[in-house]
């Protein structure tokens, strides 16, 4: 009896399942029609509109690959290929053109009184070492940096792809490694010269008078004149900006996102190019542009007449220092 009863129940259950199975496709069909089971799902265009990026979770160790789409890469490309290219070309070529015009009109700035034959120590050996450490690194950093932006259009067509890659690999390593002595140079430079580079009222007067570059008079100046102070501060501030952005670029994604990396590159490129233009002017006036100027960073001893004309107040200070020293004693440096 029990068996029959359970058989009956099973049969009834089977019949029920059968009817449901026959009937269900119809109802299921009805529910599918016009229903979007993914209506709630995130949409690419919405995400791009709201966040300007699409990102999520990845199961691989490289967590930054969770960023699915970053259309900002296109803006960075626009900056790198167009904006920076032209800013750099205009800054560097413009400065060279300006210097050529200056040389044609003003000529080499001579010592009015001629060489006196007597010299005075302007920069000691450590100051000169710091200057040339920074300058030497900067020249190679600048050339290897310019190569990244302009090499493709200037050097590559001349020497071909393989040779250009060889040059660029060396340039890349030089850029990476010389960054460190350059940063050390910036720190030393700040330490030895900041005392003499605090802006003063006299600097404004010097700049207003054209610094003896535009006119022929020589406004008084201490160890560093207004123009040199501008050079000093552009090297320090520019150097710090280059160092910070450069270190971020040197350790990619260590503490940065893709957008930070793009901004670091933009800062690094623009500051670098502007500093190259400024340094061109600095190198010109320190060498071919002015008689007697190179000695300051060459032997360290400048002609007394040159010193009196360009740094009158500094010469007075130095002479006063010497006079106050007891007789028979020679200045330490």
């Amino acid at each position: 009896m029990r068996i029959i009863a359970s058989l009956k129940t099973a049969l009834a259950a089977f019949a029920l399942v059968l009817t449901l199975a026959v009937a269900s496709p119809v109802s299921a069909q009805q529910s599918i029609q016009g229903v979007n089971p993914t209506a709630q799902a995130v949409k690419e265009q919405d995400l791009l509109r709201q966040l300007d990026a699409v990102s999520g979770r990845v199961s691989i160790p490289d967590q930054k690959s969770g960023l699915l789409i970053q259309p900002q890469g296109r803006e960075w490309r626009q900056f790198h290929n167009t904006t920076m290219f032209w800013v750099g070309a205009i800054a560097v070529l413009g400065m060279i053109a300006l210097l050529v015009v200056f040389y044609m009109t003003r000529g080499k700035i001579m010592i009015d009184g001629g060489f006196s034959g007597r010299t005075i120590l302007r920069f000691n050996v450590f100051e000169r070492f710091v200057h040339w450490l920074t300058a030497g690194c900067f020249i190679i950093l600048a050339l290897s940096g310019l190569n990244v932006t302009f090499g493709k259009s200037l050097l590559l067509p001349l020497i071909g792809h393989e040779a250009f890659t060889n040059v660029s690999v060396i340039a890349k390593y030089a850029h990476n490694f010389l960054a460190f002595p350059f940063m050390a140079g910036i720190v030393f430079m700040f330490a030895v010269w900041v005392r003499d580079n605090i802006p003063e009222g006299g600097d404004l007067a010097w700049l207003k008078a054209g610094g003896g570059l535009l006119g022929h008079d020589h406004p008084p100046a201490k160890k560093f004149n207004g123009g040199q102070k501008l050079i000093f501060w552009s090297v320090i501030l520019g150097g710090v900006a280059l160092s910070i952005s450069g270190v971020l670029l040197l350790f990619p994604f260590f503490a940065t996102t893709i957008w930070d990396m793009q901004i670091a590159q933009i800062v690094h490129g623009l500051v670098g190019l502007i500093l190259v233009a400024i340094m061109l002017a600095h190198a010109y006036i320190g060498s071919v542009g002015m008689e007697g100027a190179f000695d300051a960073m060459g032997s360290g001893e400048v002609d007394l007449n040159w010193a009196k004309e360009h740094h009158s107040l500094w010469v007075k200070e130095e002479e006063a220092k010497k006079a106050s020293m007891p007789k028979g004693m020679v200045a330490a440096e």
Partner: protein
Amino acid sequence: MARVKFLCDADRCIECNACVTACKNENEVPWGINRRRVVTINDGKPGERSVSMACMHCTDAPCAAVCPVDCFLTTADGVVVHNKDLCIGCGYCFYACPFGAPQYPKVGNFGSRGKMDKCTYCAGGPEADLTLAEYSKYGANRLAEGKLPICAEMCSTKSLLAGDGEIIAQIYKERVLKRGYGSGAWGWQTAYRETVAI
């Protein structure tokens, strides 16, 4: 020749990561490098969605435009390949790429990068087809063998489609019409400046 593309039908992707694994195996991709990855958006929430992503082989590719040593080239099929003999590992292509496709082996000091590696659409590199040199640098050249990229070919749900851009767009359109919904071709607007109109 056809212009080949990738299309990920995100409504079908089940985040199995088989495409990632197959790609690594087929191309002997070095440790630490993933040419393809699956990104899950809104993970664990309603509206979760997974998308398989690799190099999209963009039209007017940003990587090629910013490369300082001009090491990229686009094949007649529209595949963006690069020459590892020329690459200097500067990392610029990664900053420009909208899809995070370029990968770099970590070599030497600091964060210094080796030669860039990315999805080749299983089309090898600029070396002679199906040579050992090509395989060791770029991985398989399935295109030369008349096959499509392994990731798409073995996709279990046929979510990832590869092939002639027009044909895969047509397949996707038919799917969307049949099932009544579709979230669009992810990344197409960014990569190809066009989308699949439905």
